[in-house]
């Protein structure tokens, strides 16, 4: 029991993923800076590595302003709940071996639920805060969600069909020989595009487009609540990269055969980090090279291009099997 709680809360559960989230933010900021001929975070820690942590604690200690017309209960206690969503999701991801902390036979269904629930949580938070920017933002968020959910599920369906299982452990296990990215490259690409939409990154940062609606549904949040929301967005980032790793890149497994348990776990951990950061890096690069599109363009792109592409991939898989 103690081991299980330790796994859930410290490693490879909550704390571990929070630290990866900070590292992701650092990597994102540093990559963007390099691409844009800047230097990025510099002074906090080696190469500014602790800058995201410092920012987080700065926000925590800042004053929290509660708008008069907001739903105070949800406004105050919603952000921690929102934070818990990707944290629970991350507990299903296999990090050290074939199984995650909470793994069970149909955990992929639960992960789909988590992905939908994080959008729902965001809309609840936005409505609780009130304000016109939030209202518009939630309209866009929900519209965008309805557009990308179908390609998301279809792209996740490809590994499911290949492995004939709804369990992440099974999917990882069946990738020991060849990663699914080679079987289903189109699905992987669709998954990356959909991740951009889920994460509200360019070109799909429409619900939080800062030059149009300030910060979207996050506009009214400040202090502790904003710290939670920002951390959650980074955690979502990690969660989706890890999910892509698990579904298409063979999870933590590397093509090396090691007998010793401890060393194998260490190698698996290294493999997991390497793959997750690579996927994250790929997303940074794509988002840096694109401008934001409009909501109707995003909807039509997601419905008319990504959805048929995912169907095509499924068709190919069915024919080849």
């Amino acid at each position: 029991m103690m081991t299980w709680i330790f796994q859930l809360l410290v490693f490879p559960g909550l704390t571990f993923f929070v630290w990866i989230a900070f590292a992701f933010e650092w990597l994102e900021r540093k990559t963007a800076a390099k691409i844009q001929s800047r230097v990025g975070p510099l002074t906090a820690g080696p190469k500014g590595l602790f800058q995201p942590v410092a920012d987080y604690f700065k926000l925590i200690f800042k004053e929290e302003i509660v708008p008069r017309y907001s739903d105070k209960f949800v406004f105050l206690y919603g952000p921690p709940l929102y934070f818990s969503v990707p944290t629970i999701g991350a507990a299903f991801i296999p990090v050290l071996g074939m199984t995650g902390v909470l793994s069970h036979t149909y955990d992929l269904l639960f992960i789909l639920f988590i992905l939908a629930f994080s959008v729902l949580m965001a809309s609840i938070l936005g409505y609780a805060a009130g304000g016109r920017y939030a209202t518009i933002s939630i309209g866009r968020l929900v519209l965008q969600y309805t557009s990308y959910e179908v390609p998301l599920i279809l792209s996740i369906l490809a590994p499911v069909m290949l492995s004939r299982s709804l369990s992440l452990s099974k999917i990882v296990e069946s990738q020991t020989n060849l990663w699914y990215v080679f079987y289903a490259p189109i699905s992987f690409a669709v998954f990356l595009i959909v991740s951009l939409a889920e994460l509200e990154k360019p070109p799909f940062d429409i619900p939080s487009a800062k030059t149009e609606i300030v910060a979207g549904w996050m506009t009214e949040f400040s202090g502790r609540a904003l710290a939670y929301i920002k951390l959650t967005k980074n955690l979502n980032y990690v969660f989706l990269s890890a999910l892509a790793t698990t579904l298409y890149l063979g999870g933590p497994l590397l093509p090396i055969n090691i007998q010793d348990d401890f060393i194998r776990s260490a190698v698996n951990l290294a493999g997991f980090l390497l793959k997750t950061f690579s996927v994250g890096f790929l997303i940074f690069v794509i988002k840096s090279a694109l401008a934001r599109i409009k909501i109707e363009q995003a909807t039509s792109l997601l419905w008319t291009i990504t959805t048929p592409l995912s169907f095509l991939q499924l068709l190919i898989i069915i024919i080849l099997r």
Partner: protein
Amino acid sequence: MSRDDSLEKSLKETTAGLIQYSPEGLVPFGPVHPALKEPEYFKIILEGEKIVQVIPRIGYAHRGIERAVQERTWIQAIYLVERICGICSFSHSLAFVQTVESLTEYEVPRRARYIRLIIAELERIHSHLLWLGLVGYWTGFDTLFMWIWRDRERVLDLIELITGNRIHKSYATITGVRRDLPENIERHIQDAMRYLTERVNFYKMVVNSEATILTRTKGIGWISPDVAVKLCPVGPLLRCMGFKRDVRVDDPYAAYDEIVPDVKTSTDSDVLSLINIRLAEVEDSIRMILEAITGIPTGPIKTTIPRTVPRGDGMGHVEAPRGELFYFVRSEGGNRPVRVKIRTPTLANILTATEMLKGHTLADVPVVLTGMDPCFGCMDRLTVIDLDKGKEWQITGEQLRKYGIEWYKRNGVGEK
């Protein structure tokens, strides 16, 4: 309904709608908003995502310069008017100085006119690149934004090399310019221009072929030229509708009669054509600067600077980067102006921009509204606040804290 009637009706709706609106579906755009560099307030009335009406409320950067100019001598006024705007500061001082010169009968030396052209064109490059970078920012393409602003630094460095400051150049004076060009500036200018030509070609390629930028700019902000011309827009906004109007050609000043600009027009009247016109103008400016620096004549850079100006009404205009900048100066023979009226390009364009927005979606607001390159600091000039010279605003941190605590107590914000 005939075409003229419908046009009339549309214009009537524009003007009437400036004061009548329903508060439902109102989205505030400003006074403080990430898309606007300066404080200004636009009430945007929406139906879903579609814009029905845009109501500007200007005056947030109102500083009282027109009144303040009346209390300064002709020379002191130059430094005040150039502080109306940071980006087109030389255009402001040049327009004022030329208006005053038209009242005096002094000749401007040829070398000074060439130097004025060089600075004015450097300023145009810097302003257009700044705007293009902001297009990247408005469309969420931060990488483009950072790159362009990095390249803009080259122009600012050149301006600092020549005038001694990056933004407020303090360079023009009545009957000439204040400092001669430094030595070996030719080499610096040629290096920078070579670099900029290469970069501008690259940006041209990016904005014309990157799909995500094209979807945001092509066909966006279309307005019928017949409607628009009645709203009296100026500058690139007018040229993108197919009107070949440019003060540098229509009413040549500085050395524009010898080095003639090549005015580019387009008939698309959308944001993409605005981008392309501005990029073409940057290329043209580079050509003109290189021509001017190689063919610059020798001689004096200024003649006598008059302390008084003869009685009369002077009117002058220059083509600032954003369009026609107009100055009216009335002198009664004294050592200070009696009335100075400034019409900045933004005030002329703002009505057209609000008209352009109608029928578009909220996502187009930043791109279209700022497509005319607004400068609200230019637009709102007058005040009653800033004149007193001996008095300063000073507020200590302690006072501010006290004020904040009192404010919170009074308003009960943040209490649970």
